[in-house]
């Protein structure tokens, strides 16, 4: 029972973790990407399209174990990368307003997700109208064989597909890069004060592009994880819900630290599903759904009250850099 609860908590938390880590990387460069929900939709649907087309092409024959994993992954990556490039081009190169661009990206990305989710069968001329990628999902959900024999412990630690572990690895990797490498130091500098970074010879444009695109790709994997591992390969429109916004909330909650983000995502995941497990009445269950936002809101106020520099958003967050001369 406990094992199963933690298992679903983690599964619920992983898409958020992807989104959170991706958005932290993006925001560290000073770009507030409110298009994250759209990016996660695109990441999810792109993987779905890849998997769908591959499954269609099989016509009943056995899939190639390598391709069935790599095709959705690559498609997801490409889809989110395009979103990242659109955002970077508009915001970094054309210096468009970040909030407006982000919201447009969300409109666009959610539109893409729902449009293809609702229309791909028809476009591909397939017979069934629902998208059910059980075959692909089985590969994505495959876990180590010995986990089943280890009771709760196995369920809590070893029972997930590889995307779950990848999320944690990426988050830890982001932490290491931020704190232990020169790239991380430069990225933090760009987000804090692009003018200073520029004067120190760091290419602000390059870092902003890279951070935004890498962040988007990571966030996109969150969408893919949701479909393939959490939802067992079933895509239904709008099922992903507000997870993208929740991931942005997580960034604040984790005070822009990916290592805190790991625990925070799982905590948020737990809150998300607590209502299903607590047999609570309607009001309480709706209240539990509110808790992540409420807690984040409180954290946001407290950090701004305390003004402790370590817990503040990157100084230049939301502001574009324009070196007027030279």
């Amino acid at each position, binding site marked *: 029972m406990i094992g199963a609860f933690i298992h679903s908590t983690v599964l619920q938390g992983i898409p958020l973790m992807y989104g959170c880590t991706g958005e932290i990387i993006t925001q560290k460069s000073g770009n507030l990407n*409110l298009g994250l929900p759209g990016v996660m939709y695109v990441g999810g649907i792109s993987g779905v399209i890849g998997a769908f087309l591959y499954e269609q092409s099989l016509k009943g024959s056995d899939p190639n174990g390598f391709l069935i994993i790599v095709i959705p992954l690559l498609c997801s990556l490409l889809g989110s990368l395009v979103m990242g490039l*659109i955002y970077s*081009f508009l915001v970094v190169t*054309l*210096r*468009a*307003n970040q*909030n*407006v661009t982000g*919201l*447009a*990206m*969300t*409109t*666009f*990305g959610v*539109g*893409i997700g*729902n*449009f293809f*989710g*609702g*229309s791909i069968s*028809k476009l591909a001329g397939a017979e069934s109208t629902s998208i059910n990628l059980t075959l692909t999902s089985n590969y994505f959900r495959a876990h180590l064989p010995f986990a089943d024999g280890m009771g709760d412990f196995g369920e809590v630690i070893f029972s997930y597909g590889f995307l779950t572990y990848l999320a944690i690895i990426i988050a830890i990797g982001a932490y290491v890069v931020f704190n232990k490498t020169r790239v991380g130091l430069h990225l933090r500098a760009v987000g804090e*004060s*692009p*003018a200073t970074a520029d*004067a120190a010879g760091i290419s602000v444009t390059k870092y902003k592009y890279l951070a935004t695109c890498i962040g988007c790709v990571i966030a996109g994997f969150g969408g893919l994880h949701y479909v393939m591992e959490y939802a067992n390969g079933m895509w239904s*429109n709008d099922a992903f819900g*507000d997870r993208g*916004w*929740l991931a*942005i*909330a997580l960034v*604040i909650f984790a005070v822009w630290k990916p290592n805190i983000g790991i625990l925070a995502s799982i905590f948020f995941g737990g809150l998300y599903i607590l209502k299903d497990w607590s047999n609570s009445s*309607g*009001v309480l269950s*709706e*209240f539990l*759904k*509110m808790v992540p*936002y*409420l807690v*984040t*809101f409180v954290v*946001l*106020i407290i950090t*701004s009250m305390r*003004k402790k520099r370590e817990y503040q*958003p990157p100084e*230049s967050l*939301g*502001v*574009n*850099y*324009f*070196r*007027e*001369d*030279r």
Partner: protein
Amino acid sequence: MNKFRIHIAKRDTMPVAAAWAIRIGAIVLALLLGSLLTLVLTGKNPLSVLLTIVQGAFGTERKIWTTLRDTSVLLMFGLAVAPAFKMRFWNIGAEGQVLMSGLGTAVVMFFLGGKINDGLLIILMLVAAIVCGMLWAFIPAVIKAKWNTNETLSTLMLNYIAAQIVSMFIAWAVPSGSMKMGIINQDTNAGWLPALFGNKHILIIIMALLITAFVFVYIKYGKGGYELTVVGESVKTARYVGIKVEWVIIRTMLISGAICGIIGFLQVAGVEHTISPNTAGGLGFTAVLVAWMAKLNPIVMIFTSMLIVVMSNGAGDVASSLGLNASFSDILTGIILFFLIGCEFFINYKICFSAKNDKISSDVTDSKESESSGGVEENEGGKQS
């Protein structure tokens, strides 16, 4: 040094006509790309698709009314956020403010419906709506004024808190667990707004026009509008001339909240007669785009909101007639937005291709500080904070 350099500089000002020509050009380009996309996905003639879009929005009298109604609602959302934007306060919380005021309306309607005089009921509903909307706008304003809490993030959170409060109310009021409020006072119609001239859309349209006029006058001619413009341009200057910056932030947000209150009231009492977490329908976010595309000019916002509504209603029609998902309209809208967002660059900056060692026009005392570069025309204010 390269033989040729691309040098980007801020433009002084572009003639208004030229700026709008660029924007219209961007829309045309976006429509071309959208048509191409349509062609690839559906194999239909793009021109006929565009025609279907227009027909989808204006084809029948009913559709015209729907389009006008939707435009009005979206316009009001845009008007609610515009004054705050002019102050460089990035309020993306109209969604939550409308939800809360819708909830206020519904609560009064639910509890007092049939118990008091219908006219009094409607007045109480309106008051409740405005109070709730203002409260939900007051919170981010006061924490911004007091602790400089990032308003984009706080309003974003408040949207979801509002949605969940609505859900909590529904869960409490409808114990069956269906999570559907149902039509309130279906039998008595208590608290339902009457249809003016026999048309339930007219009241909304009139309100939208009234609010447009109010916001236009307030920003352009009002003392309050002047104060918020100064605060948006330079907090230092505002303090220097004795403007109470904190109070201006709060007051401006209270106005936003009040407008949201009216929207919530109209939606619940006039259109839906029920409340759900989707009562605001995500328009709070779309409103940001409407206001921004119009350069925060309330009059221009009439057209930008209509553009978005036509796209979404019309393209929805296209998609469903082809058996495709109605979200196709979001993709087209997204493309148009991308082009509009991108084209601002060419209005605000000039690109010089020049031989090496050119003379850079810049200030001698230039301290190379980073400059915020919102896409908004300079004298219109509203650059990002």
